[in-house]
């Protein structure tokens, strides 16, 4: 059976035909224009309009934004990039400071709030810092004699002294070292011998923190 196209149907697809797009009924439509002068005229109009619009588009200048636009945008891009980087750095600083503060608060407050007798941590490598400084006491702070003997200038590889707060803490699998500054008086309170004249001075120390956030040990850096 041959599909018969009406003028109304033809009118609904005439633009598809004129624009050269895919049209399922193209064969029937072309048959229709052979017998319908009105639709033939409509198709000629649409085709002429399509060609005229294509020609207008080709002649329409300029076709791209001038280079000045790109230049300004690249300047803006660099400004924005610097702004973002600055914000990120600022965030990192703030987060680092907050994290250090939290670590300091949690670790040291536990430690300071629960002082324990010196004999509780008297393993050979971690002598009680409350032992007398003897004749070799430095002016401000005396680390444990064992540590002092092995490494008179406490360094990165020196041993950590256990903290009372970690006594009941579970063993750790991951540890982190955070460097802090504390008043020498705070160390004195937990048993580190500090001379009376230097208790107000700041002491740099490394705190060993487990993955659970509990401070496990301390070593004096300076």
């Amino acid at each position, binding site marked *: 059976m041959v599909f018969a196209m009406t003028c109304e149907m033809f009118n*609904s697809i005439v633009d598809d035909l004129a624009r050269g797009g895919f049209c399922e009924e193209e064969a029937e439509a072309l048959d229709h224009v052979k017998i319908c002068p009105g639709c033939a005229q409509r198709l000629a109009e649409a085709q002429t309009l399509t060609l*005229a619009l*294509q020609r207008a588009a080709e002649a329409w200048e300029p076709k791209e934004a001038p280079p000045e636009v790109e230049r300004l945008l690249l300047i803006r891009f660099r400004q924005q*990039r610097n702004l973002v980087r600055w914000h990120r750095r600022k965030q990192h600083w703030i987060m680092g400071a907050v994290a250090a503060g939290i670590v300091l608060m949690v670790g040291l407050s536990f430690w300071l709030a629960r002082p324990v007798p010196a004999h509780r941590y008297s393993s050979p490598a971690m002598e009680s810092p409350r032992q007398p400084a003897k004749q070799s006491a430095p002016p401000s702070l005396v680390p444990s004699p064992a540590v002092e003997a092995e490494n008179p200038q406490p360094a990165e590889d020196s041993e950590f002294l256990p903290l009372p707060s970690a006594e009941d803490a579970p063993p750790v699998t991951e540890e982190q070292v955070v460097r802090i500054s504390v008043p020498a008086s705070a160390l004195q309170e937990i048993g580190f011998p500090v001379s009376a004249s230097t208790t107000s001075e700041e002491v740099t120390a490394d705190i060993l923190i487990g993955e659970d956030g509990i401070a496990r040990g301390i070593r004096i850096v300076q």
Partner: protein
Amino acid sequence: MRPYTAGSDDDLLRRMQNGDEEAFAMIYHRYQGGIYRFALHMTGNPAMAEEVTQEVFMALIGQPDRFDSLKGSLQAFLFGIGRNHTLRCLERERGLMPLDAGGEWQTHATGEASLELLDDLARRESVARLREAVKSLPPIYREVIALCDLEEKSYAEAAQMLACAVGTIRSRLHRARGLLLAKLEALYRAPANQGG
């Protein structure tokens, strides 16, 4: 001309968000022409087209996170910003003009264009008149002419860019072309009427 390597939009955007200037330049070169020409065809004003292009990429620089690849392509996203800004420019220029003002327009009936008009359209000199006629169309019809006829986008591409159905593009284009022919006929007749 700087060498630009190919890359998917997502890759380029990710690189751009990490501060890669070349990635931004590649996105710009990929889409600025289409956006600029659309704005130019809509406004007929190169300065406005520049402004629109600049605004589109400023928005991308300032808020790249606004683009969500799950909601559509980067091209459609940028084009959407460009379209909104173009319409704002048109409103600013001519006062508030309703988007769909074509209802009051006399559309062209099938097969009514005069032979003289068709002859005139076939001539190269008719380009200026054609531009004037395009520019006089209500924006909602002008944009489908700009995309489908001047930029030769498919219905599907235009539908994605204008965030509407393919059927809507098809019917809107049909009406737009009818309006355009009517306007051309009027423009073609106008000098003769004035002269006579």
